[in-house]
Protein backbone atom coordinates (compact mmCIF):
# COMPACT_ATOMS: atom_id res chain seq x y z
CA UNK A 1 0.00 0.00 0.00
CA UNK A 2 2.80 2.36 1.00
CA UNK A 3 4.55 1.60 -2.29
CA UNK A 4 1.43 2.52 -4.30
CA UNK A 5 1.02 5.79 -2.39
CA UNK A 6 4.66 6.68 -3.00
CA UNK A 7 4.30 5.96 -6.72
CA UNK A 8 1.16 8.14 -6.88
CA UNK A 9 2.81 11.00 -5.00
CA UNK A 10 5.83 10.75 -7.26
CA UNK A 11 3.65 10.90 -10.36
CA UNK A 12 1.70 13.91 -9.04
CA UNK A 13 4.98 15.67 -8.26
CA UNK A 14 6.38 14.99 -11.75
CA UNK A 15 3.18 15.97 -13.54
CA UNK A 16 2.63 19.18 -11.55
CA UNK A 17 6.31 20.13 -11.81
CA UNK A 18 6.37 19.61 -15.58
CA UNK A 19 3.11 21.37 -16.30
CA UNK A 20 3.95 24.45 -14.20
CA UNK A 21 7.32 24.67 -15.92
CA UNK A 22 5.75 24.55 -19.35
CA UNK A 23 3.14 27.18 -18.49
CA UNK A 24 5.71 29.35 -16.78
CA UNK A 25 8.14 29.15 -19.68
CA UNK A 26 5.73 29.79 -22.48
CA UNK A 27 2.88 31.88 -21.29
CA UNK A 28 3.43 34.14 -18.32
CA UNK A 29 5.92 35.36 -15.79
CA UNK A 30 5.39 37.02 -12.41
CA UNK A 31 7.73 39.81 -11.39
CA UNK A 32 7.64 42.34 -8.55
CA UNK A 33 6.61 45.91 -9.48
CA UNK A 34 10.09 47.14 -8.58
CA UNK A 35 11.78 45.07 -11.31
CA UNK A 36 10.60 47.66 -13.82
CA UNK A 37 12.86 50.32 -12.28
CA UNK A 38 11.97 53.50 -10.36
CA UNK A 39 8.22 54.14 -10.26
CA UNK A 40 8.70 57.54 -11.91
CA UNK A 41 9.86 55.53 -14.92
CA UNK A 42 7.52 52.55 -14.71
CA UNK A 43 4.30 54.19 -13.51
CA UNK A 44 3.09 55.11 -16.99
CA UNK A 45 3.17 51.40 -17.95
CA UNK A 46 2.27 49.75 -14.65
CA UNK A 47 -0.04 52.28 -13.03
CA UNK A 48 0.17 53.42 -9.43
CA UNK A 49 2.67 51.91 -7.02
CA UNK A 50 0.02 51.42 -4.34
CA UNK A 51 -3.01 49.09 -4.34
CA UNK A 52 -5.13 50.12 -7.30
CA UNK A 53 -8.41 50.08 -5.33
CA UNK A 54 -7.14 52.82 -2.99
CA UNK A 55 -7.60 56.49 -3.96
CA UNK A 56 -4.04 57.11 -2.75
CA UNK A 57 -1.50 55.37 -0.56
CA UNK A 58 -0.87 55.38 3.17
CA UNK A 59 0.27 58.65 4.74
CA UNK A 60 3.44 56.94 5.97
CA UNK A 61 5.99 55.61 3.46
CA UNK A 62 4.78 52.08 2.71
CA UNK A 63 5.84 49.36 0.28
CA UNK A 64 2.84 47.71 -1.38
CA UNK A 65 3.04 44.12 -2.53
CA UNK A 66 2.12 44.61 -6.17
CA UNK A 67 3.22 42.10 -8.81
CA UNK A 68 3.32 42.27 -12.58
CA UNK A 69 2.20 39.42 -14.81
CA UNK A 70 3.89 39.46 -18.20
CA UNK A 71 1.96 37.26 -20.57
CA UNK A 72 2.44 35.91 -24.07
CA UNK A 73 0.35 33.64 -26.29
CA UNK A 74 -2.42 33.57 -23.71
CA UNK A 75 -5.37 35.93 -23.51
CA UNK A 76 -5.63 38.65 -20.91
CA UNK A 77 -8.88 37.08 -19.72
CA UNK A 78 -7.17 33.76 -19.04
CA UNK A 79 -4.31 35.44 -17.19
CA UNK A 80 -6.79 37.34 -15.04
CA UNK A 81 -8.49 34.08 -14.16
CA UNK A 82 -5.20 32.52 -13.08
CA UNK A 83 -4.05 35.62 -11.18
CA UNK A 84 -7.17 37.46 -10.02
CA UNK A 85 -6.96 40.76 -8.20
CA UNK A 86 -8.54 40.57 -4.76
CA UNK A 87 -9.11 43.62 -2.62
CA UNK A 88 -10.24 41.38 0.23
CA UNK A 89 -7.03 39.35 0.17
CA UNK A 90 -4.92 42.42 -0.64
CA UNK A 91 -3.61 40.81 -3.83
CA UNK A 92 -2.85 43.23 -6.64
CA UNK A 93 -1.50 42.50 -10.12
CA UNK A 94 -0.74 44.50 -13.25
CA UNK A 95 -1.05 42.59 -16.52
CA UNK A 96 1.46 43.51 -19.20
CA UNK A 97 1.67 42.03 -22.66
CA UNK A 98 5.09 40.57 -23.54
CA UNK A 99 5.68 42.96 -26.45
CA UNK A 100 4.78 46.01 -24.37
CA UNK A 101 7.14 44.83 -21.62
CA UNK A 102 10.07 44.23 -23.97
CA UNK A 103 9.58 47.52 -25.79
CA UNK A 104 9.37 49.31 -22.40
CA UNK A 105 12.74 47.86 -21.42
CA UNK A 106 14.33 48.61 -24.82
CA UNK A 107 13.17 52.23 -24.66
CA UNK A 108 14.22 52.85 -21.08
CA UNK A 109 17.59 51.11 -21.29
CA UNK A 110 18.54 53.55 -24.08
CA UNK A 111 17.12 56.50 -22.12
CA UNK A 112 19.07 55.58 -18.97
CA UNK A 113 22.31 55.13 -20.93
CA UNK A 114 21.75 58.58 -22.48
CA UNK A 115 21.24 60.13 -19.05
CA UNK A 116 24.34 58.37 -17.75
CA UNK A 117 26.35 59.87 -20.63
CA UNK A 118 24.93 63.30 -19.80
CA UNK A 119 26.45 62.88 -16.31
CA UNK A 120 23.36 62.07 -14.27
CA UNK A 121 23.65 59.55 -11.42
CA UNK A 122 22.17 56.33 -12.78
CA UNK A 123 24.33 53.79 -10.93
CA UNK A 124 23.67 50.25 -12.13
CA UNK A 125 20.16 51.02 -13.41
CA UNK A 126 20.80 50.26 -17.09
CA UNK A 127 22.39 46.91 -16.14
CA UNK A 128 19.48 46.07 -13.86
CA UNK A 129 16.95 46.81 -16.59
CA UNK A 130 18.96 44.77 -19.11
CA UNK A 131 19.07 41.79 -16.79
CA UNK A 132 15.28 41.87 -16.20
CA UNK A 133 14.71 42.08 -19.95
CA UNK A 134 17.01 39.08 -20.48
CA UNK A 135 15.14 37.15 -17.78
CA UNK A 136 11.80 37.86 -19.51
CA UNK A 137 13.14 36.74 -22.88
CA UNK A 138 14.69 33.60 -21.39
CA UNK A 139 11.43 32.66 -19.75
CA UNK A 140 8.92 33.66 -22.43
CA UNK A 141 10.99 33.36 -25.60
CA UNK A 142 12.44 35.80 -28.08
Amino acid at each position, binding site marked *: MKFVINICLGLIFIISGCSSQVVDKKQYLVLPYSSF*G*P*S*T*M*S*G*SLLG*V*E*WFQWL*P*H*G*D*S*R*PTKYDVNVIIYREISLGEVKKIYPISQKKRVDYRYINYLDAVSYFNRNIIEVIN*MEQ*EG*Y*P*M*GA*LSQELKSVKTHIINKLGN
Partner: protein
Amino acid sequence: MSTISIVARKKTLDLYLNHQNEVGSELKKKHPKKYENYKSTDCITYVLNVLSFAYKAVGNNQMAKDIWLMGKENRQADFKGTILAKRLVNNKNWAGIYVSPDSIHPTDGDKEHTFAAVMAKRNCTFSPDKVPLKHRVVNYKPTSKNDPKFQSLYPNFGTSTLNEVDYKVLERIPFGFGLSRGGMHCWVFVEGFVYEVHWDSVGSGLYEKTALRDFPWLSSAIFVPNDVAANLKLVTLKCAVGV
Protein backbone atom coordinates in the same frame (compact mmCIF):
# COMPACT_ATOMS: atom_id res chain seq x y z
CA MET B 1 -7.55 92.13 0.15
CA SER B 2 -6.61 88.56 1.08
CA THR B 3 -5.01 86.39 -1.57
CA ILE B 4 -5.63 82.70 -2.11
CA SER B 5 -2.33 81.82 -0.36
CA ILE B 6 -3.07 83.92 2.73
CA VAL B 7 -6.56 82.45 3.18
CA ALA B 8 -5.35 78.90 2.49
CA ARG B 9 -2.56 79.27 5.05
CA LYS B 10 -5.09 80.36 7.69
CA LYS B 11 -7.45 77.48 6.89
CA THR B 12 -4.59 74.94 6.95
CA LEU B 13 -3.63 75.97 10.48
CA ASP B 14 -7.26 76.18 11.57
CA LEU B 15 -7.98 72.57 10.55
CA TYR B 16 -4.69 71.42 12.03
CA LEU B 17 -5.64 72.91 15.39
CA ASN B 18 -9.40 72.22 15.36
CA HIS B 19 -10.58 68.84 14.15
CA GLN B 20 -12.57 67.38 17.03
CA ASN B 21 -15.36 66.34 14.65
CA GLU B 22 -13.08 64.57 12.13
CA VAL B 23 -11.78 61.02 11.78
CA GLY B 24 -9.44 59.32 9.32
CA SER B 25 -11.33 57.77 6.39
CA GLU B 26 -9.87 54.28 6.81
CA LEU B 27 -10.58 54.26 10.54
CA LYS B 28 -14.17 55.29 9.88
CA LYS B 29 -14.52 52.48 7.34
CA LYS B 30 -13.37 49.98 9.98
CA HIS B 31 -15.65 51.35 12.71
CA PRO B 32 -18.59 53.06 10.96
CA LYS B 33 -20.89 52.91 13.98
CA LYS B 34 -18.35 54.29 16.42
CA TYR B 35 -17.54 57.27 14.19
CA GLU B 36 -20.94 57.85 12.57
CA ASN B 37 -21.08 61.44 13.79
CA TYR B 38 -17.54 62.27 12.67
CA LYS B 39 -16.60 63.74 9.31
CA SER B 40 -14.30 61.52 7.30
CA THR B 41 -10.97 62.97 6.16
CA ASP B 42 -7.67 61.90 4.65
CA CYS B 43 -4.66 63.47 3.00
CA ILE B 44 -6.36 64.62 -0.21
CA THR B 45 -9.53 65.70 1.61
CA TYR B 46 -7.41 68.02 3.79
CA VAL B 47 -5.93 69.61 0.67
CA LEU B 48 -9.35 69.97 -0.99
CA ASN B 49 -11.02 71.36 2.14
CA VAL B 50 -8.36 74.06 2.32
CA LEU B 51 -8.42 74.91 -1.39
CA SER B 52 -12.19 74.94 -1.68
CA PHE B 53 -12.49 77.21 1.36
CA ALA B 54 -9.78 79.55 0.07
CA TYR B 55 -11.23 79.91 -3.43
CA LYS B 56 -14.64 80.63 -1.95
CA ALA B 57 -13.18 83.21 0.43
CA VAL B 58 -11.55 85.11 -2.43
CA GLY B 59 -14.83 85.10 -4.35
CA ASN B 60 -14.15 82.32 -6.83
CA ASN B 61 -17.17 80.12 -6.12
CA GLN B 62 -16.77 78.19 -9.37
CA MET B 63 -13.25 77.04 -8.46
CA ALA B 64 -14.40 76.27 -4.92
CA LYS B 65 -16.76 73.75 -6.50
CA ASP B 66 -14.59 72.57 -9.40
CA ILE B 67 -11.61 71.76 -7.21
CA TRP B 68 -13.38 68.60 -5.95
CA LEU B 69 -13.42 67.18 -9.48
CA MET B 70 -10.25 68.64 -10.96
CA GLY B 71 -8.19 65.58 -10.01
CA LYS B 72 -10.29 63.26 -12.17
CA GLU B 73 -9.10 62.66 -15.70
CA ASN B 74 -12.65 61.70 -16.65
CA ARG B 75 -15.92 61.00 -14.85
CA GLN B 76 -15.11 57.37 -14.14
CA ALA B 77 -11.49 57.92 -13.11
CA ASP B 78 -10.24 58.03 -9.54
CA PHE B 79 -9.24 61.38 -8.11
CA LYS B 80 -5.47 61.82 -8.36
CA GLY B 81 -3.41 64.51 -6.66
CA THR B 82 -1.07 64.57 -9.66
CA ILE B 83 -3.90 65.37 -12.06
CA LEU B 84 -5.12 68.17 -9.77
CA ALA B 85 -1.58 69.58 -9.63
CA LYS B 86 -1.20 69.34 -13.39
CA ARG B 87 -4.40 71.29 -13.99
CA LEU B 88 -3.56 73.94 -11.40
CA VAL B 89 -0.19 74.48 -13.09
CA ASN B 90 -1.44 74.36 -16.67
CA ASN B 91 -4.73 76.23 -16.26
CA LYS B 92 -4.35 78.39 -13.15
CA ASN B 93 -0.69 79.46 -13.34
CA TRP B 94 0.43 77.63 -10.24
CA ALA B 95 4.16 76.72 -10.05
CA GLY B 96 5.69 73.34 -9.22
CA ILE B 97 8.82 73.05 -7.06
CA TYR B 98 10.65 69.74 -6.83
CA VAL B 99 12.16 69.26 -3.35
CA SER B 100 14.58 66.68 -1.98
CA PRO B 101 16.81 66.73 1.12
CA ASP B 102 19.61 65.13 -0.92
CA SER B 103 19.17 64.77 -4.67
CA ILE B 104 21.69 61.92 -5.04
CA HIS B 105 21.95 60.06 -1.73
CA PRO B 106 18.50 59.33 -0.24
CA THR B 107 18.65 58.12 3.36
CA ASP B 108 16.21 55.27 2.62
CA GLY B 109 18.48 53.91 -0.13
CA ASP B 110 15.69 53.97 -2.71
CA LYS B 111 16.87 54.98 -6.18
CA GLU B 112 13.39 56.33 -6.97
CA HIS B 113 14.34 59.64 -5.29
CA THR B 114 17.51 60.10 -7.32
CA PHE B 115 15.72 59.22 -10.54
CA ALA B 116 12.88 61.64 -9.74
CA ALA B 117 15.48 64.36 -9.07
CA VAL B 118 17.03 63.71 -12.49
CA MET B 119 13.61 63.89 -14.18
CA ALA B 120 12.92 67.19 -12.41
CA LYS B 121 16.18 68.73 -13.59
CA ARG B 122 16.29 67.24 -17.08
CA ASN B 123 12.61 67.15 -18.09
CA CYS B 124 10.91 69.50 -15.58
CA THR B 125 8.36 66.86 -14.68
CA PHE B 126 7.19 65.13 -11.52
CA SER B 127 5.71 61.62 -11.33
CA PRO B 128 4.70 59.34 -14.20
CA ASP B 129 1.79 61.76 -14.79
CA LYS B 130 4.41 64.34 -15.82
CA VAL B 131 3.25 67.27 -13.71
CA PRO B 132 5.19 70.36 -14.91
CA LEU B 133 7.86 71.76 -12.61
CA LYS B 134 9.41 75.23 -12.65
CA HIS B 135 11.91 75.09 -9.78
CA ARG B 136 14.04 72.57 -7.93
CA VAL B 137 15.18 72.93 -4.33
CA VAL B 138 17.53 70.16 -3.25
CA ASN B 139 20.26 69.32 -0.76
CA TYR B 140 18.81 71.13 2.24
CA LYS B 141 19.78 68.12 4.38
CA PRO B 142 22.65 66.26 2.69
CA THR B 143 23.26 62.65 3.68
CA SER B 144 26.50 62.04 5.54
CA LYS B 145 29.22 60.09 3.75
CA ASN B 146 29.23 57.69 6.72
CA ASP B 147 25.58 56.79 6.22
CA PRO B 148 25.39 53.17 4.94
CA LYS B 149 22.77 54.26 2.38
CA PHE B 150 25.23 56.80 0.97
CA GLN B 151 27.50 53.93 -0.03
CA SER B 152 24.76 51.66 -1.31
CA LEU B 153 23.58 53.65 -4.32
CA TYR B 154 26.01 56.14 -5.83
CA PRO B 155 29.23 56.07 -3.75
CA ASN B 156 31.20 57.63 -6.60
CA PHE B 157 29.15 60.80 -6.46
CA GLY B 158 30.52 63.01 -3.66
CA THR B 159 28.65 64.49 -0.73
CA SER B 160 26.01 67.03 -1.73
CA THR B 161 26.63 70.65 -0.73
CA LEU B 162 24.22 72.07 1.84
CA ASN B 163 21.76 74.51 0.24
CA GLU B 164 20.29 76.72 2.94
CA VAL B 165 19.52 79.71 0.74
CA ASP B 166 16.74 78.03 -1.22
CA TYR B 167 15.36 76.35 1.89
CA LYS B 168 14.92 79.81 3.43
CA VAL B 169 12.84 80.76 0.39
CA LEU B 170 10.63 77.73 1.02
CA GLU B 171 10.23 78.84 4.63
CA ARG B 172 8.67 82.07 3.40
CA ILE B 173 6.06 80.41 1.19
CA PRO B 174 2.70 80.98 2.92
CA PHE B 175 0.93 78.06 1.29
CA GLY B 176 1.46 75.14 -1.07
CA PHE B 177 0.01 71.77 -1.86
CA GLY B 178 2.45 68.86 -1.72
CA LEU B 179 2.76 65.45 -3.32
CA SER B 180 5.13 62.64 -2.47
CA ARG B 181 6.13 59.51 -4.34
CA GLY B 182 4.27 60.25 -7.54
CA GLY B 183 1.10 61.18 -5.67
CA MET B 184 0.96 58.30 -3.21
CA HIS B 185 0.63 60.90 -0.45
CA CYS B 186 -0.72 64.50 -0.46
CA TRP B 187 -0.19 67.24 2.10
CA VAL B 188 -0.29 70.95 2.74
CA PHE B 189 2.80 73.13 3.03
CA VAL B 190 3.05 76.27 5.13
CA GLU B 191 6.27 78.22 5.77
CA GLY B 192 8.68 75.28 5.79
CA PHE B 193 6.34 72.79 7.44
CA VAL B 194 4.36 69.84 6.09
CA TYR B 195 0.83 69.50 7.46
CA GLU B 196 -0.70 66.10 6.81
CA VAL B 197 -3.61 63.85 7.76
CA HIS B 198 -3.27 60.17 8.69
CA TRP B 199 -6.32 58.27 7.46
CA ASP B 200 -6.02 55.56 10.12
CA SER B 201 -6.15 57.97 13.07
CA VAL B 202 -8.37 60.22 15.14
CA GLY B 203 -7.79 62.90 17.80
CA SER B 204 -4.23 64.09 18.32
CA GLY B 205 -2.82 61.55 15.85
CA LEU B 206 -5.03 62.62 12.96
CA TYR B 207 -3.05 65.69 11.90
CA GLU B 208 0.72 66.01 11.99
CA LYS B 209 3.15 68.86 11.43
CA THR B 210 6.76 68.14 10.35
CA ALA B 211 9.59 70.38 9.16
CA LEU B 212 10.14 69.71 5.45
CA ARG B 213 13.80 68.85 6.08
CA ASP B 214 12.69 66.01 8.41
CA PHE B 215 9.79 64.76 6.29
CA PRO B 216 10.22 60.97 5.96
CA TRP B 217 8.92 60.83 2.38
CA LEU B 218 12.11 62.60 1.25
CA SER B 219 11.69 63.72 -2.39
CA SER B 220 8.39 65.46 -3.18
CA ALA B 221 6.86 68.36 -5.10
CA ILE B 222 5.19 71.50 -3.80
CA PHE B 223 2.71 73.45 -5.89
CA VAL B 224 2.12 77.10 -5.07
CA PRO B 225 -0.75 79.36 -6.23
CA ASN B 226 -0.22 82.11 -8.80
CA ASP B 227 -0.20 84.94 -6.23
CA VAL B 228 3.08 83.58 -4.82
CA ALA B 229 4.38 81.68 -7.86
CA ALA B 230 5.08 84.85 -9.83
CA ASN B 231 7.46 86.27 -7.20
CA LEU B 232 9.35 83.20 -6.04
CA LYS B 233 13.04 83.96 -5.57
CA LEU B 234 14.18 80.61 -6.93
CA VAL B 235 16.14 79.84 -10.08
CA THR B 236 13.89 78.70 -12.92
CA LEU B 237 14.85 75.30 -14.31
CA LYS B 238 16.41 75.46 -17.80
CA CYS B 239 13.79 73.10 -19.21
CA ALA B 240 11.03 75.36 -17.84
CA VAL B 241 12.30 78.59 -19.37
CA GLY B 242 9.76 79.98 -21.80
CA VAL B 243 7.25 77.23 -21.06
